[in-house]
């Protein structure tokens, strides 16, 4: 059994996860990273993705993360997420709407900040649908 360390996933609205874990997989702007205990101390921005958490006891958990930050400290790792949800908490209808909206914005393709935001929104919506077990309906070229 790997050494456990403390993980906190917090959002501005609430604390989503707070407890000992052995391993997590997150995606930063630089790519996917796995974090075991005694990981190098880093601070890095996160992109919208699905985080995988291996608690010390119990089953593997997954959450959608709508972007944010990761701070790996000495014995505590903190995920500062803009939003975070378990599969059971996802509003599928809303995510589908958000996906539609994002696709439309992208289709109009104004190559400025709008596009970046729309792509992030699309990513968030597709993550939610994926985790909730609903197909995003054909991947997009975004």
């Amino acid at each position, binding site marked *: 059994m790997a050494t456990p360390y403390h993980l906190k996933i917090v959002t501005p609205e609430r*604390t989503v996860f707070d407890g000992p874990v052995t391993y997590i997989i997150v995606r930063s702007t630089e790519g996917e990273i796995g974090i075991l205990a005694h990981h190098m101390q880093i*601070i*890095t921005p996160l992109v919208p993705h699905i985080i995988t958490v291996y608690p010390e006891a119990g089953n593997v958990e997954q959450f959608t993360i709508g972007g944010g930050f990761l701070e790996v400290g000495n014995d505590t790792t903190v995920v500062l997420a803009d939003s975070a949800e378990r599969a059971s908490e996802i509003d599928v209808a809303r995510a589908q709407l958000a996906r539609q909206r994002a696709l439309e914005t992208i289709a109009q393709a104004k190559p400025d900040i709008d596009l970046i935001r729309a792509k992030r929104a699309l990513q968030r919506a597709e993550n939610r649908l994926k985790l909730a077990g609903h197909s995003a309906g054909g991947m997009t070229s975004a």
Partner: protein
Amino acid sequence: MAAGGLKEVDRRIKSVKNTQQITRAMKMVAAAKLRKAELRAKKARDYFEQIQAVTRRAVSKGGAQKLVAPRTVQRKGFVIITSARGLAGPYNANVLRQAVAKMQEVGGKNAAAFAIGRKGRDYLAHRNIPILQEFLGVGDDPTLHQAQAIAREILQQYLGGEVDEVWLTYTKFINPLTHEVRTLRVLPVEEPPAEESGAERSYVFEPDPETVFNDLLPRYVEVVIFSALLESKASEHGARMTAMDSASKNADELIRQMILMRNRLRQAAITREIAELVSGAEALE
């Protein structure tokens, strides 16, 4: 004349009872809103504390950056959070007193305000304190979205050099009866006290400090504002509940006294009528 006095008292009792119904209702509404606001404020505290700690640690390790580096101060901006409505006891007065004192203390002549909430806006305008921007209509459930919009404006003014420091006055919710007016400096971000920044923390910024800060610091400002909005809202409802509770109690006391007075007046009128009848009858004999 006697009957007129009696009627007058009756009318006043009715009027006070009506007012009391309103204060009772307001107390109940405030209590319901308070429960919700308190829950939200408490849930948000964790994130706020974490991002504050992370930001401060990062700042102490990361060196100078636009949002961090102090610069020659020409004008200071003060974000002041008040409520949109009154009838909350001394709530708004307390906030404004501290905010204005702080403005004079650290801001001197070149202090300007960002007013959140109508009460603060009106007060500042009345005192001729320059208002850089006002944000009204936050409502009972401040959203992260609203906080982000406010933070964006403030950051713009800060980065554009309109203000060189940003302070924030809000109330921290402690319990329904107690809140604490607090003022803190938001920008530039303060470094943590020496013992917290301890040497054992040596961070790697990925991909590089500049990118991390560009992402982290605006978010920090957003969350400071968001969290302050939630704390202030909870405090406001607490203050209103307390104020309306004591108003209802005062009304009770007032009604009790007026009923006593009414009974006394009525008794006096009866006594006088009897006296008149008796003396009238005697006169006939």
